[in-house]
């Protein structure tokens, strides 16, 4: 008797807790607790796995170092033949041996101690020093690049306005992004994936663009294009520019970028503000190059190349180009959030439109109801009153799975719904095992009381054993699965645990109650 009330209390507590957890999902805002999370496959959205091209981050670091070396040598008037980035991540310095060997060596020892010398050869009076970055520094640079990319992407998504995005690092150089409910997936992807490296470079009008286009690009120069799309005909035109390779100013000095509307043409443009240092550089660059053209380059394509009319102080510039308001807005976002330290590649993408998600939910629910109904009716036909008890346990079971999902803040996915449906079929199993045992005991001529006791006693271990194996499979799935499959593992495990609880404790109480209140001669089973 004491045992009975203890179990009753337990069931009561579990039931109340379950209802508290599940109510917000049925009727939003009724309770301060959270609703069941729906997976991307049910509510629509985008799942992206990006890879940060850390090799590129390394290359740009090397490029920067070689430029520093070049400038230092220039400042100290040390003569050199060439300084280049070779094989991607190595620096080669070539000097005429006799005149500046010692000075270069001293400079390298002094200012660039972190570089590692790989080889040192002298051919025909020219000495070539080959250097690279040591492995530990290399790891550091790569790690920083991923960290920074993560931070930048998070910034961009925050400014784009997505509710509850999930952005996290995966492995060494991957970033996992989940954007639930997002509709314009292409736009979001473009926004996230854009490197957004803003550079200011001078247009070289002193040399022939035509001969450069034919293949003889002068040293230290490069050809970049301006791509325009006519909004009416949708024809794209490409205009080439011959630019000096050296970057005068980058977007790193930006403090703000905003969309403005041009008064004259009524077209949107992006106005950018530099910080103090950037403003100083911009003032100097424009002052030194009056009447030359300054190209605004974003991710290696030219946006505009206006002629510098006069020295520009104050650190303000504008980026024009035939933008739609949306494009201008996105450009402002990526400029504000900053450039990615290295380009990112999309490794995996899964997008589900909201209508498909809604379809999946309704189809899943319909299958669940019909399948459930079949089982419920079958159990009553087969086991009569006992079947009703099993049905009650089944309904409570679904309630418990729902509450578990809400309580653990797990995510419900389409395979997850399939998992619930599967548990409906399997949940009655525990009851079937017990009922079959009880029938056997009755067939042996025992009283109802003795049959029920024996049935439960013998079935308990069997049920535990059988369910542990399913649980093992579910736990392994949870460990190795991703996204939707994980959702399946969660509902399956919840279902297994809930069905053990309902079969071994809840239905037992009901049987005990029936036996206690009336003097039962026969069992309806």
């Amino acid at each position, binding site marked *: 008797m004491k045992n009975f009330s203890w179990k009753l209390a337990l069931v009561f507590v579990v039931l109340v807790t379950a209802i508290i957890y599940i109510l917000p999902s049925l009727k939003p805002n009724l309770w301060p607790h959270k609703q069941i999370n729906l997976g991307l496959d049910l509510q629509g959205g985008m799942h992206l*796995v990006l890879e940060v091209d850390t090799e590129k981050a390394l290359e740009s670091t090397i490029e920067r170092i070689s430029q520093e070396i070049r400038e230092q040598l220039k400042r100290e008037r040390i003569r050199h033949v060439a300084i280049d980035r070779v094989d991607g991540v190595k620096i080669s310095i070539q000097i005429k041996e006799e005149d500046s060997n010692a000075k270069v060596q001293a400079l390298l020892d002094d200012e660039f101690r972190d570089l590692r010398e790989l080889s040192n050869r002298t051919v025909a009076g020219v000495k070539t020093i080959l250097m690279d970055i040591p492995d530990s520094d290399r790891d550091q640079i790569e790690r920083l690049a991923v960290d920074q990319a993560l931070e930048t992407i998070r910034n961009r998504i925050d400014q784009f306005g997505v509710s509850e995005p999930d952005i996290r690092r995966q492995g060494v150089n991957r970033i996992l992004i989940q954007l639930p409910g997002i509709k314009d*997936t*292409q736009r979001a992807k*473009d926004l996230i*994936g854009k490197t957004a490296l803003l550079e200011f470079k001078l247009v070289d009008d002193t040399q022939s663009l035509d001969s450069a286009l034919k293949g003889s690009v002068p040293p230290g120069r490069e050809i970049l294009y301006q791509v325009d799309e006519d909004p009416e005909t949708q024809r794209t035109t490409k205009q080439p520019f011959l630019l000096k390779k050296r970057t005068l100013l980058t977007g790193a000095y930006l403090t703000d970028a905003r969309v403005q509307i041009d008064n004259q043409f009524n077209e949107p443009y992006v106005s950018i503000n530099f910080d103090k240092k950037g403003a100083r550089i911009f003032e100097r660059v424009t002052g030194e190059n009056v009447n030359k053209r300054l190209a605004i380059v974003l991710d290696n394509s030219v946006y505009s190349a206006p002629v510098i009319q006069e020295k520009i102080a104050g650190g303000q510039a504008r980026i024009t180009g035939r933008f739609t308001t949306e494009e201008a807005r996105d450009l402002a976002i990526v400029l504000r959030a900053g450039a990615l330290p290295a380009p990112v*590649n*999309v*490794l*995996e*993408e*899964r*997008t*589900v*439109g909201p*209508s*498909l998600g809604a379809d*999946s939910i309704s*189809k*899943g629910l319909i*299958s669940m109801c*019909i*399948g*459930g109904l*079949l089982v419920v009716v*079958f*159990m009553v*036909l*087969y086991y009569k009153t006992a079947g009703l008890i099993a049905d009650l346990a089944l309904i409570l079971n679904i309630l418990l799975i729902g509450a578990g999902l809400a309580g653990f803040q797990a995510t419900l996915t*389409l*395979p997850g719904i*399939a998992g619930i*449906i*599967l548990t*409906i*079929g*399997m949940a*009655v*199993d525990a009851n*079937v095992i017990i009922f*079959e045992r009880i*029938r*056997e005991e009755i067939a042996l001529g025992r009283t109802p009381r003795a049959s029920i006791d024996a049935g439960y006693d013998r079935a308990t271990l*069997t049920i535990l*054993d*059988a369910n*542990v*194996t399913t649980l*093992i*499979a*579910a736990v*392994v*799935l949870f*460990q*190795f*699965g*991703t996204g*939707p*499959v994980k959702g*399946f*593992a969660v509902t399956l495990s919840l279902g297994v645990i809930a069905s053990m609880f309902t079969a071994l404790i809840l239905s037992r109480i009901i049987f005990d109650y029936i036996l206690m209140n009336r003097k039962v001669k026969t069992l309806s089973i």
Partner: protein
Amino acid sequence: MQFVKPDVNVNFIGKRKIAFIVSAVMITISIASLILHGGPRLGIDFQGGTLIQVKFAAPVEIDAIKSGLREIDLAKSSVQEFGDQGTNEYLIRTDGSVMTTEGFTTDLQKALASATGSELEMRRVEMVGPQVGQDLREKALFAMFFALLFITIYISGRFELKWMISGIMAAALIGAVYIFTLLNVSIPWLIIGALIVTLVLFWFLELKYAMGAIVALVHDVVITVGLFSIFDKEFTLAIIAALLTIIGYSLNDTIIVFDRIRENLRKYHKNPLEVILNRSINETLSRTLLTSLTTLFVIVTLFVMGGGIIHDFAFALIVGVAVGTYSSVFVASPILLAWQSKQRKK
């Protein structure tokens, strides 16, 4: 109501030779189909590639879709109807991962709309790069392997109450796998190797129940995989989930029969093993059939009404449950007899 009368006594064990032939034929067909198809047909999850599900507002011709795809250099993709009839939904698959270019989905939508003359909705886009595909493939195989490992340990410990031996088993298995990895064999062979090691160990350590259970579940998984191959269905992440569930279900069924066998062995220890096995199977027959029935109720509903995405998943479960029920009666228990003939020979 009662489907199976309490005094039922079918001689299942007596028919074990027929069952053995049936199983052998099914497994041979499965393996033959796998070999003919050059292994299971992997979906984009495991192979990399792009899959696009589109829904048109009006009925369209597949050829029109293909001509639209040709315009944006996707001539090599396959187009196939998807889901229920009359919903105008199609699946487009390509091998390469083409998604990375800017504006891809917009271009695709425009090209398809102009080629078919119908409005359309891009309902689902999945792109998996070759690298991720390989990662997922390894992950899935490891999942199968670890499920097998843990279940092996649990069964040999729980059923024979030989936790020590099961510990040794686990150590030996992990050691064997370690040696295999040193030899640099690919993961499918690693799993097959581990499986053979497991079975050999079971045989010599006389872990009868564990042997029966594992043979039954391998039997079920192989036949399910084989049927997938025969129907030329794709392997996706969801199908791996289904296979692991089948493993769980198959064991569940087997364990319930085994539990009864252990109980009856204590009760009627003077009877020959064959009689006890038969008795146990018959006693649990009602439960075996009922549970399979209720489970089949729901998964057939899911198969019919759950929609295209869940279709193959439900199919795998139906096959698995059906075969799992058969194997717990006709495969798992007869294996226990194997040691009897071994002892007789001595």
